[in-house]
């Protein structure tokens, strides 16, 4: 039963990661841009939701506030900075968006202080339900799984079934072609960036009651989302989905079970030290493994 519970935890964490990595991979796939400030949008969503919840006491307003703030933040960032980076090389993109991270993080410190915010679980969602005999699971985490799965399904439907999705798919492989067809590329780019920001904001909002809300929370998730995107293949939403679930499971299960496992083959303190080290880096080891197995295919990338 404890295994099942941990698997659910892993899936829940994975789906949160997917919300982040889907935006990243879409933005890279379509605009060819690497955006380090994606984690800042996650933080903005979390903060806005937390503050709205404190002021109004309404879960729904908190959700709307968080999403709106993140989407707005994304559109402002796209309009003011990222738009000017599409034609630049990756180094300039990295440096400029790194500067944005410094500005936004420190700005948050100045406005909101350095104390982490703890978001109270909405009362209606704070209970647990019995899924199977012997397996009770928090309602909130179940809800996160449901939301993540719904968003993933919606995203696939959008990409494979709508005109925007077609442009998205075409844009990823034939940027010039889309431009030549007279599509308003600037608007498309802003829209895609806004969708990415919305997803990051959603991830931030739902993470609020599970983790504390603080400056720097965005970058930790951002770097994990990078790992997910590398595992799944950059530019592929489907790859991001499977990469995220795999990463979520590996992280959660190694934290849960490695200590017990190691204790069976060595003495307690050594086992705990090794287990905590291994589980801290398990996701990255998964990435290393994927890189090792991937052939060094220089030429396929070229054409």
């Amino acid at each position, binding site marked *: 039963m404890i295994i099942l519970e941990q698997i659910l935890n892993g899936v829940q964490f994975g789906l949160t990661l997917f919300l982040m990595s889907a935006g990243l991979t879409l933005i890279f796939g379509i605009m060819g841009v690497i955006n380090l400030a994606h984690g800042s949008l996650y933080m903005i969503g979390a903060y806005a939701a937390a503050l709205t919840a404190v002021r109004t006491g309404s879960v729904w307003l908190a959700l709307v506030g968080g999403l709106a703030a993140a989407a707005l933040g994304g559109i402002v960032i796209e309009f003011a900075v990222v738009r000017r980076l599409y034609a630049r090389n990756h180094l300039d993109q990295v440096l400029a968006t790194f500067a944005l991270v410094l500005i936004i993080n420190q700005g948050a410190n100045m406005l909101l202080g350095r104390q982490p915010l703890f978001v109270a679980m909405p009362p209606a969602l704070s209970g647990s339900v019995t899924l199977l005999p012997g397996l009770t699971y928090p309602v909130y985490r179940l809800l996160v799984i449901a939301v993540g799965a719904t968003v993933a399904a919606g995203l696939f439907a959008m990409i494979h079934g709508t005109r925007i999705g077609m442009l998205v798919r075409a844009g990823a492989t034939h940027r010039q072609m889309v431009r030549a067809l007279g599509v308003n590329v600037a608007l498309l780019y802003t829209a895609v960036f806004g969708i990415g920001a919305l997803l990051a904001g959603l991830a931030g909002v739902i993470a609020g009651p599970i983790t504390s809300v603080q400056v720097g929370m965005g970058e930790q998730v951002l770097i994990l989302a990078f790992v997910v995107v590398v595992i799944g293949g950059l530019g592929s939403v489907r790859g991001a989905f499977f990469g995220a679930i795999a990463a979520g499971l590996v992280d959660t299960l190694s934290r849960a079970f490695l200590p017990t496992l190691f204790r069976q083959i060595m003495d307690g303190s050594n086992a705990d030290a090794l287990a905590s080290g291994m589980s801290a880096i398990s996701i990255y080891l998964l990435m290393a493994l994927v890189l090792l197995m991937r052939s060094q295919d220089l*030429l396929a990338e*070229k*054409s």
Partner: protein
Amino acid sequence: MTSPMLELRGVCKRFGGLTATDDVSLAISPGELHAIIGPNGAGKTTLLNQVAGELRHDAGAILLDGHEIGTLPPWERVGRGLARTFQITQLLPDETVLDNVTLAVQVQRGHSFRFFADARSDPDAHAQATQFLQDVGLAASASVRVADLAHGERKQLELAVALATRPSLLLLDEPMAGLSFVESQHMVALLRRLKGRVTMVLVEHDMDAVFALADRISVLVYGRVMATGSSDDVRANPAVRTAYLGEDGD
């Protein structure tokens, strides 16, 4: 009959549903200048890229001087005596003309894990590089930075760099493209001087140049070899006339 310098046996390449190279078999003798012509999109450059190793073929075999090279990465094929030029010139823009050639000379002489000696005070390599520049008529521009070079001169430099690797087989991807009339004539004269010294595969749209230079010609249409023969054979071939000259009628 001597054994061929380059032999392709049933080479195939697909991109998704598109067959770019369809069961191509060719045998090119040592010293031959073999031209490959065909309409745009016939798969000429794709074929060159497979011989050079930038693309991996799906099926078939590629033999250089009797040895299979189809599984080797591009740099190892260079070590076996294969060199190429690019249709869109690929040069080091920050370096001078001479340094572009010198580097190729140095790489050809052995590995480049030399960390301390100054690469640029290597009189022997410079002398050889200057010789290659003279061969292609570019010695006067030796100290010009490539970024400041005119298009025609870049084409000449491509050839000098390729020759500096001392190839036994040289793949030329549209060396005349974008050249003025005078420059083309110069290039034709240059390639004619090289004939016999190096085996060459020439992909080219300039039919005057092809008919002036080629010992034999292969016509590639939709990835397939439609005909191979002397220039007269090819000119007379009715299938070629409809498939190739009919579509690309200039």
